[in-house]
C-alpha cells in the first residue's frame, strides 16, 4: 500500500456521515410536524383533469380554475384525478401533491395573508400541461 496516513479520509467520511445524519434528523422532524393535519381543517375536494382544476367546498359549491379561501383557516385538500396524473401545486405555500386516478391524496395548508397566488400543475399531463393553471384567492373572513 501507499505509505501515507489514511486518517484524513476517515475524518472526512465521518464529517460527511455526521452532516447526513443531521440533515436527515432535521428533515424527519420538520416533515412529522408538517404532516399533522389540524382537526378543524375544512375539506376541499380538488379534481384534476386535462387541463383544468375543479374545487368542491364542504358546502357543495364548485369552482373551476379559481379557489376562494379565507385567511387564518386550515384547509385539507383531497386530491383526485379523472384521467391522467397531475400534480396540484400552490408554490407560494409549498402545497404539492400528485393527483392520481384511482387514489385520494391529501395535503393541507393554512393561508396566513390576504392575497392572490398561482395554482399550477407540476406533473406532465399532455398537450396543455403548461397552461393547466389557476388562481388562489385568500380573502378576509366574511363574517
Amino acid at each position, binding site marked *: 500500500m501507499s505509505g501515507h496516513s489514511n486518517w484524513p479520509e476517515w475524518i472526512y467520511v465521518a464529517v460527511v456521515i455526521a452532516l447526513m445524519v443531521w440533515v436527515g434528523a432535521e*428533515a*424527519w422532524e420538520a416533515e412529522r410536524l408538517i404532516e399533522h393535519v389540524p382537526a378543524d381543517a375544512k375539506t376541499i375536494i380538488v379534481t384534476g383533469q386535462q387541463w383544468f382544476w375543479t374545487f368542491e367546498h364542504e358546502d357543495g359549491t364548485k369552482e373551476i380554475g379559481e379557489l376562494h379561501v379565507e385567511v387564518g383557516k386550515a384547509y385539507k385538500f383531497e386530491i383526485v384525478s379523472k384521467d*391522467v396524473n397531475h*400534480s396540484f401545486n400552490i408554490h407560494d405555500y409549498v402545497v404539492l401533491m400528485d393527483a392520481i*386516478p384511482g387514489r385520494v391524496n391529501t395535503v393541507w395548508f393554512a393561508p396566513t395573508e390576504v392575497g392572490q397566488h398561482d395554482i399550477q400543475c407540476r406533473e406532465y399531463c399532455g398537450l396543455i400541461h403548461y397552461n393547466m393553471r389557476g388562481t388562489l384567492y385568500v380573502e378576509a373572513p366574511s363574517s
Partner: protein
Amino acid sequence: MVLELQKPRPIWQIMFSTHHTDVGLLYLITSLAFLFLGGSLALAIRAELFLPGAQIIGDAMTFNRIFTVHGTTLIFLFILPFASSVGNYFVPIMVRYKDMAYPKLNAIAFWMIPPAGALIWLGFADFTWYATPPYSIISAPGPAADMWIFGLKILGISSVLGAINFIVTILKCKHPDMSIGQVPLLAWSFLSSSMIILVAIPTFAAALLMLLTDRLGVSGFFNPAMGGDPIAYAHLFWFTFHPEVYVLVIPAIGMMYEIIPRFSRKPIYSYNSGVFAFVLLSIVGFSSWAHHMYATGMSFTEKTVFMVGTLAAVPASAMHVFNFIATMWNGRIKFSTPMMWAVGGIALFFSAGAGGVANAAMPLDFTTHDTYWVVGHFHLFVMGTIAFGSIGFLYYMFPYVTGRMYNEKMGKVHFVMSFIGTVLVFFTQHVLGLYGMPRRVFDYPPIPEWIAMNQIATVGAMIIGVSMVIFLANMIYSSGKGALANTEDPFGVGGKYYYPFEAKNPSH
C-alpha cells in the same frame, strides 16, 4: 483497429469486425452522432423558452416530443454507448486479455443500438423519458409511443448483453498473474456498473412489456380504469432508473480515475477506497429509488426509509471526491485539456451532490420536486459530471484512436466555454425552480423573474452550443490533419499508459 486514418481500411471491415477496438470505434462514432443530435434538440428547447409565448417551435405537442427525444437520446444513445466505447477500448487491455470475452456478442450488443435509435427518432414520442401511465396508455399518440417502447426494449437487451460481457471479461479473462485487487479503477467502474445493470434492468424490461400490453388494451396493469395502479409503474421504473443513474455516473468517475493521477503525476491517493466506494455505491444505489415519488402520496414511514437510503449513498460519492483532491494534492499537475475537463467535472459533481441532499430531505423536496430545480440538478450530473468526464476522456484517448493530436488551444476553449455555459444554464435553473417554474412546460406566464432566469439559461445553452461546434471542428480536422502524436507519451507527463493499439490478436 486503431490509427484508422493513417492506415485506411474499407468501412465494411470495421462494421463487420468483432475486435474490441473496432466495436469501440463504432460505439464512439454512434454516441458522438447522437450527442450532437440530442444536443441540438436542447438548443431548440432553450430557444423556445427564451421568451414566454410560442416562438421557434410552433405548438406544444412538438415541444413535448422534442424534450422527450432529447432526454432519451442523450441518456441511452450518448452516455451509455460512450461508456461502452471506452470500456471496449480499455477493459480488455487493462485486464490483459486479447479481446472481450464474447466478441460476437459484443458486436451484436452494438448493432442493436442503431435500430433502437431509429425507432426513437422516427417515432418521436411525446410522453417524456419517464413514459408515465396512465398518460402513456390512454393519451399518448401512437405509433410514436409504441416505437419508443420497442426502442427502449432493444436498448435494454443491448445493455444487459454488454454488461455480461464486461463482467466475464474482467472476472474470468483477466491475466492469471493479476489479482482482482490489481485491476485498474477504470475497469472496476465497468465491473460495478455492469453488476448494477444486471440487477436493475429486468424490472423496467418487465414494466415496458406491461406498458405495451396496456396500450394494446389487453391488460390493465397500470390503467386505473381497468383496476390497475399507475404507482406500480413508478416503482418499477425507478427501481431500474435510480440505480441506472449510477450506471451512468460510475464509468465517468472511472474515467476521471484514469485522468487525474496521470496528469497529477502521482499514484492515486487510495486505490482501496476507490474500489470500496464503487462497490458500496452499487449496493446502496438500490435503496433510494422512491425518493422520486415523495409527492405521489407516500406514507411518512415510506418517505423516511427512502430518505435514509438516499442520504446513505452520499458518503460513497464523497469518497471519490476526496480521493481525487487528495491525489491532486502536492502533485505536479499538468492542466492539459483532459485534466481540465476532469477537474471541472469533479467540481460540478460536488455541486450536483450537494443539491441532491436538499432534494432528499423530505420537506425541501416538496419545494423542488418537478420544478426546474430538478432539471438543473440532474443535468449537473449528466452534463456537468458524466459528459465532462466523457469528453475529457475522449480528448485523452484521441491520440490513441487516431495517432494524431487534437488542437490543444481549441480543446481548452471548448472546456472554458462549456464550463461557463453549464454553470449559467444549470445553476440558474436551480434558482428558477425555487421560484416555482414547473419542468416540461412549452410556455410560461410572463413573471419577470422567470423570464430573466430563462434568458440567462438560454444564453448559457447557446455558449455550450458554440463550444460544441468548436469541438466538432477540432475532432474532424485533427483526426485527419493534426500533428502526429508521440504515442509513447502523447501528453508529456511520463508514466505507463494503456495503449489500445497494443491490443493483441487483431482480427485483420
